């Protein structure tokens, strides 16, 4: 949170990106009522990039199912030091969700989540925390196992503790419940969860750099 540029009392600046106008307006209104500053909305990837550049939001609430740019591409191009991306999407698109968090999104919430959950998630995202659903934990766990089974030598691995924490998140336990069960502080649980994402994202970044060098783009 050392990077936070805004005063603690100022409302969190949010950009809502969704191609469905009804949904966009509904969520925008809900967030405004909950005390956030909805600084813009966008219906597709290109527009999202423009609005994000103009309004400098802290949190982008992003639907993955956009026309044009893929969610992962958009995230990779939008990502900045003071901008965090919370994916709000349908549960059906597993690979898309995994690609999105690998590309740099720090949280994921299903669209059917309750308003309290959404508000808490936007707040947590703004504070630099990772927002995990059980579904996302299952995906990340599966991705680490897939990478471990593959031939690549530099794959990131989970520590035993991180695996334990992710499994409990996937089984629906809340962070305080996990902290109690593993005799840890909730803060430590949160850090473990955050680390599992950071490692995947770093690997993704390293791969992109290597790809760019191989293709002679520098």
């Amino acid at each position: 949170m050392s990077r936070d540029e805004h005063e603690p009392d100022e409302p969190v600046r949010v950009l809502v990106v969704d191609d469905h106008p009804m949904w966009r307006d509904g969520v925008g209104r809900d967030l405004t009522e909950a005390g956030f500053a909805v600084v813009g909305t966008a219906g597709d990837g290109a527009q999202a990039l423009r609005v994000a550049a103009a309004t400098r939001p802290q949190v982008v609430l992003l639907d993955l199912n956009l026309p044009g740019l893929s969610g992962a591409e958009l995230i990779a191009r939008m990502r900045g030091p003071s901008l965090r991306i919370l994916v709000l999407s349908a549960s059906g698109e597993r690979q898309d969700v995994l690609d999105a968090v690998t590309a740099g999104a720090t949280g994921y919430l299903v669209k059917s989540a309750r308003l309290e959950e959404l508000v808490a998630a936007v707040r947590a995202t703004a504070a630099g925390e990772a927002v995990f659903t059980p579904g996302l934990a299952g995906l990340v766990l599966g991705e680490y196992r897939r990478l471990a089974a593959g031939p690549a030598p530099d794959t990131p691995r989970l520590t035993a503790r991180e695996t334990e924490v992710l499994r409990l998140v996937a089984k629906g336990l809340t962070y305080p419940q996990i902290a109690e069960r593993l005799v840890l502080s909730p803060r430590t649980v949160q850090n473990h969860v955050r680390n599992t994402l950071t490692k995947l994202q770093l690997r993704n970044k390293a791969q992109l750099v290597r790809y760019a060098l191989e293709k002679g783009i520098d």
Partner: protein
Amino acid sequence: MVAQLWRATAAFRLATLVYAVALILRHRHGYAHPLGGLLALAAMAGWTVLATAGYARPALRRRAFVVADVLVAVALILGTRWVDTGVHIDHGAPTLPVSWAAAPVLACAVTGGPWAGLAGAAAVSAADVVERAALAPNTFNGVVLLLITGVVGGYVVRLGTRAETAVERVARLEAATAERERIAREVHDSVLQVLSLVSRRGRELGGEAAELGRLAGEGETALRTLVATPPAAASGELELRALLEPYAAERVTVSGPAGPVPLPAAAAEAVAAAVGAALDNVRRHAGAGASAWVLVEDEGDVVTVSVRDDGAGFAADRLARAVEAGRLGVAQSIVGRMRDAGGTAQVTSSPGQGTEVELRVTR
């Protein structure tokens, strides 16, 4: 494919006709009946035209026409004995149609497969042997080659036809999948968005609207499961996530890896049935408002599925006592099913802590 085979047969017939014509024109002065040689030549040319035209029309590719084709060849082979001199024949002179007589064998193979090919080859070979009144070594070789041509030709035709059918089926399947994906996208972009919005706003409004919202949420989950494309699995295997996804509901979360989790069909079905039984238990015993989470983990050689709920739970000895008392419900439907499929099931619970069922199958 069939049309191409008929064209190939016609080309073979024409090429061998040219060869037979050349041989007859060259040898005719030595024939006993040179005019007979020219007659045979005319018959072969005429039949080549007739057969090529006839086989070009699917309606005429019938048994009677093929039999006539074979009979023409047989008649020409037998006619050699009348046209040519006995001395020539006994010294191994070729029959009048030479390899032209193999064309009807090909026609048999293309029409009726390996057995018909064999029958046609047998008829033509028999005529060959009768014509020579002996089975000289080169006649024998010719007969063997002809029989092989009939059987192998027919077999290749059958394989080709099957491959063609398979390719057509795959093309149809691909078209159906593409259409399914299109529908899924449409449904996703329209109906699902509205349903999830109704579901969320309904719950916030409370009262009767909350009930409507709950129903919309259930509809959303069901529809989403329906339009999700099931990943393909090898034959004899089933994709576990596709089997478990339908259990997802308002209070049931199903999670696992992004990729497919294939298992032998029997094991996959046993796991799915055990998960269903465990979720039934949650509904019946965990208490109102209990949620459940199903987690699929693929560790390579072992697949683990856990079903956890946040309900009432029970004391550790209750399950054992239930088994002793003959109330086998949970034990039989979950533990027994998994044991039958070569897996294990472990149930852990304590009062107030919910229940967790862990199913494991070794690949």
